[in-house]
């Protein structure tokens, strides 16, 4: 009786889950605010270059370091470039690198976590130690080492962050897999002598998807954090990109002279983007736990 009832119940929750998750999310004010901020910056990343009043790369030696005015809403930088245009277009690179890095690390981390949780034993033990070892270092430091060795460029930073987050995602997915591992449907698949890959990806994966979704959204927030930080210290997105972290790095020597507008708007852009993404991540987590 229970054996026949369980799968049916499973199927109904699975079918209604996406719709109810979306409707539960929309009812959360923090999700709406976070999504609005994030969508705003995604819009800037895609359409910004066509809409801004000035070419973000065009220098103007007659108008360097002008304070905010009607002509230049956010002022101009030390090369006379319009900061408003640069801030808008500056969303582009970070919103390319960070999501792609997150996608890469989520795919690899999921595969690793599934394998660790499913196979267990020596493989799990060895991989767990490796994961511990990498997690003993701050992401920025791991990335710094790899970028020093490989040479910094926008492409390497994508791959380095992608790989750096694999252990932590692997650990989360492993934990989720372990709680599924002992369930009947997994034993059933094994009794049917399914291919381990089939069991992992077709049977277990859909059931750990919520955990992966939460982890991926949280990780995206951190990826933006890390890309911005690496760009600020010169190991991330490379010039002449109008990237925010990069702009702050090139201008922060000027703030002692009172040129606050050269860093403030880029800083606020980073702050709003990470807060927006994290409000979304937090809401997804909350909605799934409801």
């Amino acid at each position, binding site marked *: 009786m229970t054996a026949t009832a369980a799968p049916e119940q499973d199927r109904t929750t699975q079918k209604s889950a996406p719709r109810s998750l979306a409707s539960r999310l929309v009812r959360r004010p*923090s999700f709406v605010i976070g999504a609005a901020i994030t969508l705003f910056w995604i819009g800037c990343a895609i359409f910004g270059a066509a809409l801004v009043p000035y070419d973000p790369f065009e220098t103007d030696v007659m108008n360097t370091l002008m304070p905010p005015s009607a002509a230049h809403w956010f002022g101009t930088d030390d090369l006379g470039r319009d900061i408003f245009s640069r801030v808008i277009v500056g969303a582009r690179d970070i919103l390319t690198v960070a999501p792609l890095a997150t996608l890469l690390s989520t795919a690899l981390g999921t595969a690793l976590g599934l394998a660790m949780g499913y196979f267990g034993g020596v493989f799990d033990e060895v991989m767990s*130690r*490796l994961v*511990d*070892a*990498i*997690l*003993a*270092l*701050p*992401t*920025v*430091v791991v990335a*710094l*080492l*790899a*970028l*020093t*060795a*490989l*040479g910094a460029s926008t492409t390497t930073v994508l791959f380095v962050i992608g790989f750096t987050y694999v252990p932590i995602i692997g650990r989360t997915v492993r934990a989720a897999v372990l709680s599924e591992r002992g369930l009947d449907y997994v034993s059933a698949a094994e009794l049917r002598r399914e291919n381990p890959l089939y069991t992992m990806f077709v049977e277990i994966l859909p059931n750990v998807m919520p955990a992966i979704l939460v982890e991926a959204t949280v990780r995206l*927030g951190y990826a933006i*954090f890390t890309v*911005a*930080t690496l760009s*600020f*210290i*010169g*190991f991330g997105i490379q010039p002449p990109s109008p990237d925010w*972290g990069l702009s*702050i790095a090139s201008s*922060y020597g000027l*703030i*002692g002279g*009172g040129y*606050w507008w050269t*860093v*403030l708007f880029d*800083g606020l852009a*980073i*702050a709003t983007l*990470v*807060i927006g993404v*994290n*409000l979304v991540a*937090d809401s997804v987590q909350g909605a799934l736990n409801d």
Partner: protein
Amino acid sequence: MKRLLLSVATLWLLSVLIFAGARMLPGNVGRAMLGPFADARAVEQLNHELGTDRPLLEQYATWIGGFVTGDLGESYAYRAPVAPFLWTALLNSAKLALVAFLMVVPLGLLGGTIAALYRDRAADRILSALGLAATIVPEFVSGIILILIFGVWLRWFPISATAPEGAGLLTQVYHLILPAIPLVLVLFGYIARMARAGMIEALDADYTRTAVLKGLSYPRVIWRHVLRNALLPTISVIATQTVYLIGGLVVIEILFQYQGIGSLIYTAANKKDFPMLQAGILSIGILFTATTLIADLLYALLDPRIRHGGDE
């Protein structure tokens, strides 16, 4: 004991990874240091001087053998032993980290406690939202905004973290307050969140209800029964935060021009000074592993249930 062996195993793996990162990823170390346009003979000679032309296994053995006996190798950029640079940097960073911890631990515990006592009310929601926002904004962004407000406009604090030569303790601390705040902001959310969860669990526990029912005054229940039980899990969380703290140090030390472990690694990375970089990064790994180990032991010491329980 098993816990200790695991830590050693983790550290050994870490040393292999760092070695692989610094020596194998670049392919040719001498070429990576001198750049693509350097003379092939100069590259060869540098590789010979550094010992990077020998078999990898031998290089690793030399490096790690030196490391455990206290010989951290020689910096390529300074042509001098790495150790003294590393000690000075670690000491400076420890000062900055201490100032940050002295601010964030009481604040985080207080914030978490208030949030738990006013659970699901305005104070809780505001604290949670602020904590989340503070945690996720990169240190260099909050650092820049703090410099603008308190360093440039109000002129309350110096922009540089380094106190003048021979300055007294108070002056040194005064210089470290502004750089410590971004670190405090990043850690506040985590600590407050953990403290809040621990407090709520303790508030809902049976022993708390018993204490209330037997007529103890509310502040006394909170102080004697709830706080003691709630703070325990928070200790281990604080220890795991050291790794985030060190990650933050890299950026903060660059922003505030402070000679700590973060700026040491950054400078080494920029100069492709691999011996210095390896030593700096491994020392961070050792610090983190040691801190989590101590936190685990401390936790076990404070909680008799774990001390008598199984290993691991």
